[in-house]
């Protein structure tokens, strides 16, 4: 069942096209991330769904109902802002009860709801505090409680965790996931943090320059990126470009095979390989089914559990390799090595 649908939405400011013919469907009760670099139009899209911004073209539907012309204050959405936007002169309790009062829910019923969501976000006992007397993480929870207490048709989150420090952010990601599951709200989450998108979401939609370039489950997008942008924005990737030949792609160091279907011989194509799929071999020849490439180690970046090897192939192009530090370093800078990886991990991407 579809919770939120956007159909051919466009938005521009003067000559600047912020969103261009964007269509997407957000499953009911699921958490979808809109992932993109700044300027990709993700926040604009979120605000169009919420009703803060009117689109130039297209339609927004909640559970099949066209809400494009319903103003923000009647659209029944829950919004959490990057700055939290808590009302500074009101207590936590008054902030959270605000939306209920606006919907005519008062007295005991309203207080019961407030108590329920404050318990859900673990803020019971802080009802009488003012926002300024709370930590960043607590303010974040108040903003969330305020947005979900009215049981909105869709919960919209605009980079809600970006103001928190790393540790707290990871804690809140888990919390947010739990609260989203418990409340069962259709949730759309805007972020530029790929790790956050992968960890939190049921579905990730990648935006680039006003278009959704790919949408799908996190693993699907990570393992099977369709474009160079998707591959490089979500995670790290090595790219090889060359003409299609019989049985593979001709590159500087030899032939690269892929499990994907290749176009006609002679066509220029690009494939992406994730750094952790590449293995380093010093001795012995690679198996016939594997891709292999000669390279020279230029740098090793040690990061505790893992190390990143920066290498150079025969044409001088940079290749990255990520490896678990099981034992002592497999190679040193300057060493000539052989890189091997499976054709199944060699993904054909569009430029």
């Amino acid at each position, binding site marked *: 069942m579809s919770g939120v649908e956007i159909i051919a939405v466009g938005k521009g400011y003067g000559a600047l096209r912020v969103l261009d013919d964007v269509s997407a469907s957000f499953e009911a009760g699921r958490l979808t991330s809109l992932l993109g670099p700044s300027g990709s139009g993700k926040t604009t899209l979120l605000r169009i769904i*919420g009703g*803060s911004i009117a689109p130039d073209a297209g339609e927004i539907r909640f559970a099949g109902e066209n809400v494009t012309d319903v103003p923000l204050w009647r*659209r029944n959405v*829950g919004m959490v*802002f990057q700055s939290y*936007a808590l009302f500074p002169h009101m207590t936590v309790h008054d902030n959270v009860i605000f939306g209920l009062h606006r919907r005519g829910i008062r007295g005991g019923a309203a207080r019961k709801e407030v108590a329920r969501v404050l318990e859900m976000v673990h803020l019971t006992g802080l009802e009488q505090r003012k926002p300024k007397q709370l930590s960043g993480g607590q303010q974040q929870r108040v903003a969330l409680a*305020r947005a979900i207490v009215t049981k909105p048709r869709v919960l919209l989150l605009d980079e809600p965790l970006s103001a928190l420090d790393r540790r707290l952010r990871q804690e809140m990601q888990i919390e947010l996931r739990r609260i989203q599951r418990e409340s069962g709200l259709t949730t759309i989450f805007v972020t530029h943090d790929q790790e956050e998108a992968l960890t939190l979401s049921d579905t990730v939609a990648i935006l680039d320059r006003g278009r959704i370039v790919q949408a799908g489950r996190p693993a699907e997008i990570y393992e099977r990126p369709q474009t160079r942008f998707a591959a490089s924005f979500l995670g790290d990737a090595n790219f090889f470009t060359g003409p299609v030949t019989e049985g593979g792609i001709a590159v500087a160091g030899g032939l690269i095979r892929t499990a994907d279907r290749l176009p006609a011989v002679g066509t220029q194509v690009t494939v992406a390989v994730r750094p952790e799929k590449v293995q380093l071999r010093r001795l012995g020849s690679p198996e016939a089914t594997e891709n292999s490439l000669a390279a020279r180690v230029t740098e090793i970046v040690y990061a505790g559990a893992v190390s990143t090897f920066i290498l150079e192939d025969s044409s001088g192009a940079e290749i990255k390799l990520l490896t678990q530090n099981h034992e002592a370093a497999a190679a040193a800078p300057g060493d000539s090595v052989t890189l091997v990886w499976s054709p199944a991990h060699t993904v054909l991407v569009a430029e």
Partner: protein
Amino acid sequence: MIAAGRAYLFATIAFLYLPIALMVVMAFNDSALYALPIEPSLRWFEALADNGPLLAATRNSVVIASATSVIATALGTLAALALNRRRFRGQTLLKVLLLPPIAIPWLITGTAMLVFFFWTGIGRGIHAMMIGHVALALPYVVLIVGTGLQTLRSDLEEAAMSLGSTPLHAFFTVTLPPLLPSIVAAALFAFAVSLDQFVVSYFLSTPGVSTLPVEIYSSIRKGFTPEINAISTIFLGVSTLLVLIFAQLSDLRGRRERR
């Protein structure tokens, strides 16, 4: 070193307050000739009650200052909202144009107003002084309220609307209350600007109708009486009170910010 610094500080304060202190003390001295020792007396304050022109001027001053404060605060707050929350053509120019009136000498502003009011038929009198004072106070109001607005995030209203507030309700419930200290501070400042104004008032007053500073000035020219000390003391008290309330409001805001 610290002792020298402290002495310097005391000297500065003394330099600021000694003339004023002398005036206040003499207001309570029985002698008209500043004779010592001081004989405490309220006779100059009593004499004030019989001084018709001075009382009338005081009443004018308070009326003009109150009206200026209300009008300038209302207009200035609206202008500050437009300048800080809306986007429109010429916005930056308008913002910049607010500043020169603060720097232009009052003598020039006063002359310009006199000429302009004469030319347009507005003339002189209480109404002219009110218009003049509103014009003088307006930039201060816009600046003070604008500063208050800048500490207030603009997505508060959006948040309120997402929770079901109409734009008007959102403004009155989430923007206005936190902004109130700034607005009150601006109103007090506008009141003080009008009350203390001499040059513009002097140019725009008519012989029968003047404000307290103008009246004090003409009394001094006619011949000094300690009544002037008395009325000045009262005037001083009121001004100081306003400034203290203003400082208290700004400080409150500042402290809330820091937390």
